[in-house]
């Protein structure tokens, strides 16, 4: 079977503009989730992880004029540029595919009626993907995966399939989402936001923290230009239960995990959970993990560091998880102190070294969707 390698990656969040910068902050126990009073984003104060605008535009200026690109586009371009700078893969050919994972893209343009510079057409996700395609001269028409909070994980699984099928040699997968008034007001109306940095799997967790960010993973079928981490098969599954609430039995996530483990046939050393820190999500994940017989496998959530980055989450968290896998170093679950889930899974409470060969990334989202994806050395 054709193997799929990770050639290069990037993470941009409040904790940094590249992968190593983010990891170093996480290892030192720094959270990027802060208290904000910003009337443009919310009538009420809120807690969230926001990318520093001054630094973003500063960095973007090295590539192009920040006034001509939306914040979303700047995040995507900075992320792709950084990932490309660390690989010698030639993306110009017709054997390279670009996949954008996002839930809401340039959605803030909808509320920007006064704006004369940006066209309303830019709110469409296909438009955003085409703009990025043209910017980087990808010769093939890009794909957009917009599948709620599993978009990022799903996009990597789709990209790996495209290489395995022989249609493409390289796939650039980029996940981006922003903290906007649109999203903040929506999650607020659901009363699912924590009043402080979120606490995944903790007894006192009350909700999620929103975050924004961008992540890129460059997949390749060519082992010569790659590091040591490979992307295995990934699967999704729907709960067929409720459009906004997780299944009590963890049915969809359990099926996604089961199918992924069966197809890959490898033992698991580590699980990077979705871990949004809402009472129901974390409980559901612990049920699914236990049903799959994985309760002894170390599990963490990165969301206490950079919040829930929605469609980008699957990409930025996969990058962080594969970093852990490469360095044999597990990162603690920021915000987790006292176990607070019915099924006693093994939540990682402190940074620890561990020899690892495999890692499972899981995610769940609105619409009852769930996904699992294996990475291995």
């Amino acid at each position, binding site marked *: 079977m054709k193997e799929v390698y990770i050639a290069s990656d990037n993470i941009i969040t409040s904790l940094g503009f590249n992968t190593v910068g983010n990891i170093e902050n996480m290892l030192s126990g720094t959270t990027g989730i802060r208290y904000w009073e910003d009337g443009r984003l919310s009538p009420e104060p809120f807690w969230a992880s926001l990318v520093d605008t001054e630094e973003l535009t500063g960095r973007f200026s090295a590539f192009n004029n920040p006034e001509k690109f939306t914040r979303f586009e700047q995040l995507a371009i900075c992320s792709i540029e950084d990932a490309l700078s660390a690989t010698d893969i030639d993306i110009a050919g017709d054997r390279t595919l670009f996949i954008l994972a996002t839930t809401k893209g340039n959605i803030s343009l909808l509320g920007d009626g006064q704006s004369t510079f940006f066209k309303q057409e830019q709110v469409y996700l296909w438009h955003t993907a085409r703009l990025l395609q043209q910017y980087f001269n990808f010769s093939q028409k890009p794909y957009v995966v917009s599948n709620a909070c599993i978009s990022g994980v799903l996009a990597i699984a789709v990209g790996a399939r495209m290489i395995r099928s022989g249609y493409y040699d390289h796939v650039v997968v980029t996940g981006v989402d922003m903290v906007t008034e*649109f999203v903040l*007001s929506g999650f607020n109306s659901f009363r699912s936001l924590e009043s402080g940095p979120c606490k995944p799997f903790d007894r006192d967790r009350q909700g999620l923290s929103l975050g924004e960010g961008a992540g890129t993973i460059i997949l390749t079928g060519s082992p010569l230009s790659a590091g040591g981490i490979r992307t295995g098969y990934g699967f999704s599954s*729907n709960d*067929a239960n409720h459009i906004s609430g997780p299944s009590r039995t963890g049915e969809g996530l359990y099926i996604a995990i089961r199918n992924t483990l069966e197809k890959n046939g490898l033992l698991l050393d580590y699980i990077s959970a979705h871990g949004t820190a809402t009472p129901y999500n974390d409980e559901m994940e612990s049920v699914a993990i236990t049903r799959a017989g994985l309760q002894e496998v170390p599990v963490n959530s990165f969301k206490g560091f950079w919040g829930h980055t929605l469609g980008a989450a699957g990409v930025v968290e996969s990058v962080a998880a594969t970093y852990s896998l490469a360095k044999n170093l597990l990162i603690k679950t920021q915000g987790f102190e006292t176990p607070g889930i019915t099924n006693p899974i093994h939540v990682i409470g402190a940074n620890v070294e561990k020899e690892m060969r495999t890692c499972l990334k899981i995610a769940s989202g609105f619409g009852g969707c769930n996904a699992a994806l294996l990475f291995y050395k």
Partner: protein
Amino acid sequence: MMVDPFVISDYCIIRQNRVVKNGNTLHESDETTVAGFLTAIYRHFGINYPKFHKMDNLCKLGFLAAEVLLNHSNLKERYHGDKVGLILANAASSIDTDRNHQLSISNRLDYFPSPSVFVYTLANIVIGEICIRHAFLGESTFFIEKSFDPGRMHHYVYQLLEEEAIQCCITGWVELDSDRYEAVLYLVQKSDIHPDGIAIFEPAKMNEIYLQRT
């Protein structure tokens, strides 16, 4: 003789005030609004599913196309729920409900964001609604494209079928943007389970069905 492994067993098209299944017009309406037309379809086919009335128009459109597509298909007797996939695409994502949600937050003195609206600001909710209705638990993905591209859709669905992630797939295009709407769904099955499909599962056939006059 080589047998093609997958067939299009049925298709359903909803556009221009008509509902067409496998080439036959099943319903025509002179309703002047999208919402009115969708309700008329629901009534015409005698569907009884109270959750329908809570859905946004995009979900109603996809739900109704799936109802018509799957009528008499006996999928439950042929496949486990986790072997039925839903791979859909459109151009506008959930833009209609996005605009509604945006309206609810555009005025600070009249600020009324609602969870029952916000949950529909994701295109893949239509997949969730169809899965809930039919207990489908299989592989699902929502793609966004400027226009329907049967070749690319076929390529991904074929891979899923070939690696046996799924054995049956509902795939196609469910688009709604203000007063413009179009649903074209295909039911793809394994030819050894369903040998009498109406067409081979291939991009040219998908395109021919999509481009037919309705």
